[in-house]
């Protein structure tokens, strides 16, 4: 029955982007972002109100607001490249939503790919249609719910959890967690690398260019936040160039 579904996927060959970029799609993603803003507003307001309890002055508050705003300009600019990439695959509205809330570009790309893999198609490929897109949307949404659930259930007990973890080897959790994350990325990457010349080249190029950029940004730390976006851009064009021109 599942393979019947695969053959019956409609709006393939990028046609699904018509739905993904529709005005209604914008409408359905706006409520969450409004809630994010409401939360930020409430927290700012409450923090300012509580300031006098611990001796914060109006000057402190102003400086905190300034620092927060100015600090966000650099990272904000570096979002452009990854935004455009994500938009070309998931459409403007959904990409806007996902990069405004929990979930980095990597997390969202992996979630979207997991959805596509379950449907037996390539993310954004020729067979990737509206049903596959919907699958990616569901998987991405469910993935970040993991963070929401842990937050809702455990955040207020975080102090106690922290102390319990410190009684054991806290570093081990970090180290093993990191290895699992690397393994996840490696598995998706391996899948791409065996998936054709273009993808293989893009992967290698991304690796090499990123390594170079990281080295450069050790001397010029301000460039660090642009590394991934730039490496990605360079790598995709190298891959495209080689595939199209190389024939």
């Amino acid at each position, binding site marked *: 029955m599942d393979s019947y579904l695969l053959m019956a996927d409609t709006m393939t060959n990028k046609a699904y982007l018509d739905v993904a970029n529709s005005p209604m799609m914008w409408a359905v*993603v706006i409520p969450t972002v409004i809630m994010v803003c409401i939360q930020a507003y409430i927290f700012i307001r409450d923090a300012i109100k509580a300031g006098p309890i611990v001796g914060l002055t109006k000057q402190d508050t102003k400086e905190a607001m300034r620092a927060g705003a100015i600090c966000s300009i650099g990272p904000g600019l570096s979002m452009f490249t990854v935004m455009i990439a994500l938009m070309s695959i998931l459409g403007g509205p959904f990409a806007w939503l996902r990069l405004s809330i929990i979930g980095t570009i990597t997390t969202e790309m992996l979630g979207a790919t997991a959805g596509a893999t379950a449907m037996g198609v390539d993310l954004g490929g020729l067979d990737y249609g509206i049903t596959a897109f919907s699958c*990616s949307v569901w998987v991405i949404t469910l993935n970040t719910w993991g963070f929401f659930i842990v937050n809702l259930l455990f955040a207020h007990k975080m102090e106690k959890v922290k102390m319990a973890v410190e009684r054991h080897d806290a570093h081990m959790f970090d180290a093993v967690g990191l290895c699992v994350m690397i393994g996840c990325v490696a598995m998706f990457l391996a899948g791409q690398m065996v998936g054709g010349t273009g993808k293989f080249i893009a*992967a290698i190029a991304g690796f090499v260019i990123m390594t170079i950029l990281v080295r450069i940004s050790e001397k010029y730390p301000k460039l660090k936040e642009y590394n991934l976006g730039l490496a990605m851009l360079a790598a995709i064009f190298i891959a495209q160039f080689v595939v199209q021109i190389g024939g």
Partner: protein
Amino acid sequence: MSNVHNTEDVDKRFHEEYTVKMIKRGRLTTLIAALLTFIPALYLWLALGYKPSWSLIGQGWAIIVSSYLIIYFVEPLGFYPVMGLSGIYIGYLAGNIPSVRLPAMISAQVATGCEAGTKRGELVGTIAIGMSVFVNLAFVTLAAITGVAILNVLPPFIVSAFDYTLPAILGGVIAQYFKKNKVFVPLILAICVVLQKAPLPSVAKFPSAILLSFFIGYFLYKSKKK
């Protein structure tokens, strides 16, 4: 100007007048926003009639949750000492913690001379993180608007290059990990390539990769400690 110098009194007031309310409001706003994240999926399904079978959604979810499960727990725990509880609530809804929220918090703490991990540090950090939500959102929105326009005028040669986004980004991400994990990264990558090519059923491949990562990671950590 408050002249409460008694630390116990300050702690008590802070807890009652700020922390308790903050936790309630943080949880409520997070819950509402989390529920709202389902709207796009529900819209595609209920309004337009597009939805894969629950079994397919489950398979996709199983692939991603097998690796992220441990991260859901480990990551917030790692950020909590620096972010404070308020920072965790905003950070785990608005996201972008290491790239935007953390720098904003630290910058505010430095600017006001408040130490991280203190109540003053938590408050100025929270104010800064809150501001970063608005500023960062403005840029992401700008990127969305210009991005749509840009994608529309770009020639197909360039637009279709974005089909290579996933391997390009993952190659870059692995490069970042490789810097500090020169043994594990090539090892697990080789294993994953073998797994991808192996004649295993696809439902077995991802969990195998994750389990192997878990055990190899554990083994490497323990052997380093010796």
